[in-house]
């Protein structure tokens, strides 16, 4: 072989070696998830103990953040995701797992829905066959083709009766109800939380100017938590609590230490009679630096409805009165304070 051939072979070997090395590197990077993604995977399987239907991965609460910290530390120490999950089960119980265990009563949740769907499919096939055969049951394999032939040649086809259609519909509804009870969230929409402004409408109501303006800011700056708070406040004022809650939660998702988002959630919860959770949100807003008179107003309203909270409610409203100038709201709060002082029922 000439020197030129040797050089070519060496070059080919070098390129080949580099390619294989690169492929291994890329492959191992793809195969080995980062610590962040492993923490997220474990946290997604755990229920946030103080939230409603949120995982530890998605919750903005302080306790969920602590739990994520514990997961991270344990993974760094070399524990497997299963061992970390078992650590939480040992402390909180089985309910901390978002997916029920495939053992004991939990088996129903895993086996039930496929079994129900399978039974529904069998029933559907059975009913369709009966319909094709004109209502006669297919007695056996031998008579099946003969019966089908006879049906095709001599009998007029029958449409499914109202009872059959009704039965099928009722069956489908029942399946949906059972599955949604067993797995809340199965039928939840996965649509984006970004508001639609292309038609200038949310739902079927036309948007007032301030909501439209706030929505436009969100569309322009979807990563700005304060834009979502503004949208939440605007929708709250317009009497759209669901949209407002979504906006405040989105804000907290972007910035879990935003006092105005907690304040908005607190006002929303207190306004809807969820006094304890509202109070929790308002306290969180206070801890993060919120000092607006709205905070004291709604804290007073929540405290006044809680056992042993009347004295504290008066304190909150007095703080509100110190910060608020004359007006109808001030007179109203003065009236409430006088009401509580006289031992009358909370507003």
């Amino acid at each position: 072989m000439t020197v030129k051939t040797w050089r070519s072979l060496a070059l080919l070997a070098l390129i080949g070696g580099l390619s294989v090395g690169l492929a291994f590197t890329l492959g191992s990077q793809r195969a080995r998830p980062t610590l962040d993604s492993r923490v997220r995977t474990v946290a997604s399987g755990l229920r946030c103990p103080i939230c409603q239907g949120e995982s530890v991965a998605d919750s903005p609460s302080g306790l969920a953040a602590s739990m994520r910290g514990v997961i991270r530390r344990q993974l760094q120490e070399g524990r497997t995701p299963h061992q970390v999950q078992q650590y939480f089960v040992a402390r909180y119980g089985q309910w901390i797992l978002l997916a029920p265990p495939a053992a004991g009563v939990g088996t129903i949740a895993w086996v039930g829905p496929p079994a129900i769907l399978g039974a529904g499919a069998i029933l559907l096939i059975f009913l369709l066959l009966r319909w094709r055969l004109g209502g006669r049951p297919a007695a056996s394999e031998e008579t099946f083709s003969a019966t089908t032939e006879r049906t095709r040649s001599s009998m007029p086809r029958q449409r499914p009766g109202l009872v059959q259609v009704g039965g099928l519909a009722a069956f489908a509804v029942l399946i949906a109800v059972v599955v949604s009870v067993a797995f809340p969230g199965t039928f939840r929409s996965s649509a984006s939380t970004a508001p639609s402004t292309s038609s200038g409408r949310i739902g079927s109501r036309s948007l007032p100017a301030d909501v439209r303006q706030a929505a436009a800011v969100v569309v322009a700056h979807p990563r700005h938590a304060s834009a979502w708070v503004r949208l939440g406040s605007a929708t709250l004022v317009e009497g759209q609590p669901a949209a407002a809650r979504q906006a405040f939660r989105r804000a907290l998702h972007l910035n879990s230490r935003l006092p105005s988002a907690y304040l908005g959630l607190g006002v929303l919860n207190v306004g809807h009679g969820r006094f304890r959770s509202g109070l929790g949100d308002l306290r969180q807003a206070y801890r993060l630096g919120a000092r607006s008179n709205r905070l004291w107003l709604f804290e007073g309203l929540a405290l006044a409805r809680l056992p042993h909270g009347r004295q504290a409610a008066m304190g909150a409203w007095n703080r509100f009165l110190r910060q608020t100038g004359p007006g109808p709201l001030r007179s109203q709060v003065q009236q409430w304070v006088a009401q509580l002082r006289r031992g009358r029922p909370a507003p």
Partner: protein
Amino acid sequence: MLVAFVFLLAYGFGKPAILQTPLLGSTAPSFALRSTSGQVVRLSNLHGHPVVVNFFASWCVSCRADESNLVRVSRRFGSRVRFVGIIFEDSGRAAADFTRQRGGAWPDLVDPGGRTAVAYGVTGIPETFFINSRGVVKAHSVSLSSSALRNGIATILRSS
């Protein structure tokens, strides 16, 4: 299927409203935390004494409402039982102000990153764990009522 549906509902509604900690009967998770006054408190150093561990915060309405019960019970059983407060999601300064107003002569410990709260499976506050002299969790309460505190302490004194 209807029977299965009713069974599912009955199973769900039949569960107790207050979740009991699975730590009952197990060794209490150890901790070594710094108190608001600067001293380090280790649970292992308290073995040999029944211990009441109370998770609390200055912003917690129920903690404020029932703080007097804890102080009263600590004065009554203080010679036989050790009391420890662990601050939950609160600044050490706010908690120290709160405990100064509250009274009570037990250490309040700062829990960095909430790791001890997670180790005890805390879901909210106030939450109190009653640990016997052998370091086993024997009772647990989410209330600071006098009866809950007295019952918990009686349990750990009996089993110590």
